[in-house]
């Protein structure tokens, strides 16, 4: 039998465990306190969330969760003290840890793992729920895309009346939710000049009508299967957009800007992050913040201030060289990172890191669905590293890249040093790591004194 401790005592014990984990060098301790709290009293998460005077906002997506949440935080920080899982710990344990650490917070802002979303939503009872995209991700962990989509559909059906739902209408799976939830806020891109010229890319997922199975006609495909779709057979189409990005300009690796159209007006948004996928992230952050009461002026100011979430287009100075880190974790996200790099000129040297821990996906076949090919034209040399470096080497070899120009160094530190040594002084090294490789590489450069530990930076 379990004897329940009072919440403050539980919370104190769990926090102490997190501090101990950091001191012991076991990592950021971003999930340990939450795991303990969860074990000691499963009801504590709801109680802690219930104490936030301005309530909780939750967002989920396959791609862009961390960046979107960080953008939303930049918009909302002047308005409220946030409890925000900014280090990306997005399972129940991470949310619980954040709640524990957030003394005096007024508003909860949580990015949540796709599979964990139903449970977290049930526990923290958000005011606003933002669903931003669904791509094929780590099939070994989640089963299949359709399974997640079905869980989300049933979650939306069971949402209490008062919860505001915010969805990306450009994703057919999410756009279809609007039929079940009148009053949902729909956002999307409305700028055919930014549509992909070749139509849908190889890794596009929701190519067939969610209602009848016929192939969609895409009037415009922007990122993967996100776009302006219409089913020629049954007529299912993108719902009308309440918030839209128009007149988009992409400025290479330096940023992007667009007009944010809302019923109350239009505001030019200037982002310091590049790429169309970050326009989507900014749109989601804008729609979410607006549902929480932010004005268009506040949204524009917050997004303009925002630089980068850790590991996502993050620049780190290492002596007289710079590291440009772009997290890759699934085909759609990686394709956009590569598309953005190529638009900015494309690197002549790249360091690519592939691990296969649970958080990376134990099934590495996804790298074959990534369009690395556009990168190869300008690339003279690639250093592959991580536990599955050899598999990456094969990906490049069978893409037609000269095997003699591929260096295989499974040890991350050796891979990093080799690539840095090949980077000219004053130059920038492009690094494309999977999730745990990103954390480990960040730990290496932080140990050398180049970046703050992420749990301190956040």
């Amino acid at each position, binding site marked *: 039998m379990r004897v329940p401790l009072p919440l403050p005592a539980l919370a104190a014990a769990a926090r102490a465990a997190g501090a101990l984990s950091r001191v012991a060098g076991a990592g950021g301790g971003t999930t340990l306190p939450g795991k303990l709290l969860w074990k000691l009293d499963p009801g504590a998460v709801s109680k802690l969330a219930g104490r936030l005077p301005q309530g909780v906002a939750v967002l989920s997506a396959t791609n862009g969760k961390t960046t979107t949440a960080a953008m939303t935080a930049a918009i909302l920080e002047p308005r409220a003290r946030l409890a925000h899982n900014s280090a990306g710990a997005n399972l129940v344990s991470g949310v619980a840890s954040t709640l524990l650490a957030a003394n005096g917070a007024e508003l909860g802002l949580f990015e949540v793992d796709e599979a964990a979303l139903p449970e977290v939503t049930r526990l923290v009872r958000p005011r606003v729920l933002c669903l931003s995209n669904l791509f094929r991700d780590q099939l070994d962990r989640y089963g299949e895309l*359709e399974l997640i989509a079905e869980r989300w559909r049933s979650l939306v059906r069971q949402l209490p009346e008062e919860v505001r739902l915010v969805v990306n209408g450009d994703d057919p799976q999410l756009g279809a939710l609007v039929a079940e939830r009148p009053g949902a806020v729909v956002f999307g891109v409305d700028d055919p000049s930014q549509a992909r010229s070749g139509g849908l890319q190889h890794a596009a997922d929701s190519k067939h009508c969610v209602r009848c199975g016929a192939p969609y006609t895409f009037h415009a495909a922007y990122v993967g299967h996100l776009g302006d779709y219409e089913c020629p057979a049954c007529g299912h189409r993108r719902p009308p957009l309440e918030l839209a990005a128009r007149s988009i300009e992409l400025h290479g690796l330096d940023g992007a800007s667009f007009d944010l159209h809302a019923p109350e007006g239009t505001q030019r948004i200037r982002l310091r992050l590049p790429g169309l996928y970050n326009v989507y992230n900014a749109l989601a952050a804008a729609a979410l913040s607006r549902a929480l009461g932010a004005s268009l002026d506040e949204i524009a100011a917050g997004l303009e201030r925002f630089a980068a979430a850790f590991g996502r287009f993050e620049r780190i100075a290492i002596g007289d060289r710079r590291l440009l880190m772009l997290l890759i974790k699934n085909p759609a996200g990686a394709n956009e990172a590569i598309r953005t790099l190529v638009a900015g000129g494309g690197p002549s040297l790249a360091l690519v890191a592939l691990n296969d821990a649970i958080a990376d996906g134990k099934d590495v076949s996804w790298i074959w669905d990534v369009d690395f090919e556009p990168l190869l034209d300008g690339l003279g040399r690639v250093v592959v590293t991580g536990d599955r470096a050899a598999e990456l*080497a094969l990906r490049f070899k069978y893409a037609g890249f000269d095997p003699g120009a591929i260096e295989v160094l499974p040890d991350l530190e050796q891979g990093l040093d080799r690539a840095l040594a090949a980077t000219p002084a004053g130059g920038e090294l492009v690094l494309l790591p999977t999730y745990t490789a990103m954390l480990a590489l960040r730990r290496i450069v932080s140990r050398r004194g180049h970046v703050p530990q992420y749990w301190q930076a956040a």
Partner: protein
Amino acid sequence: MKIVVGHLYPEYLNIYADRGNIAVLARRAAWRGHELEVRPISAGAAIEPGVHDLLYIGGGQDREQALVAHDLAGKRDQVLAAAAGGAAVLAVCGGYQLLGRFYRFADGEELPGVGLFPLHTIAGERRMIGDVLLEVELEPDERRTIAGFENHAGRTKLDEGAEPLGRVVAGFGNDGESGAEGCRVGRALGTYLHGPLLPRNPWLADWLLAQALAHRSGGEPPSFAELDDGLEREAHAVSARRARARGGR
């Protein structure tokens, strides 16, 4: 020589990096002075007799698989004729299931299959996910290993006397209990293994290419000169290690 590959439903069944398999076939053919031409065979299109030296069908999510099952069942005689005429076949995951006799869902509903492979598949509760290592003997006394990744809920049961592709050294295989993985009928191979399958098992790609060339020439499968497969061996070793660490079934 030109090798014509018929890729069945590439727009629907492409989930487990099937284009990695195609890329490996294309490059390894080219390195031997052959040209691989890949022709998509979409829903509604017919498989013209004798044209394809190799038929390839990949995996899809349940939804996509259901969409193509009925179209494929309509091509039943064409697929059987191609295989009987000596064309090589590689079917991976969902495509492997669909080339069996039928796939039965938990509620009893059935998707029709082609019946090239003497087997059927029944949906299971728990997905079987992880690295797999097989021992195979496609040619007498040539023992080889195949390393790959499996992710399937279906339990595939081979008919009495049917020949599996290989014996499971580590992983689940067809059904998690028989110790068998995949199925072989002459030059037709079906398997749950992706990863993708061919980059880290280049000898298997070469075997398929040789069978396809035999179909084209009407003669015996040629033997190829060795290539530098150092990277492939390394990737195979890592995958095999993962499977062994995972242990038996």
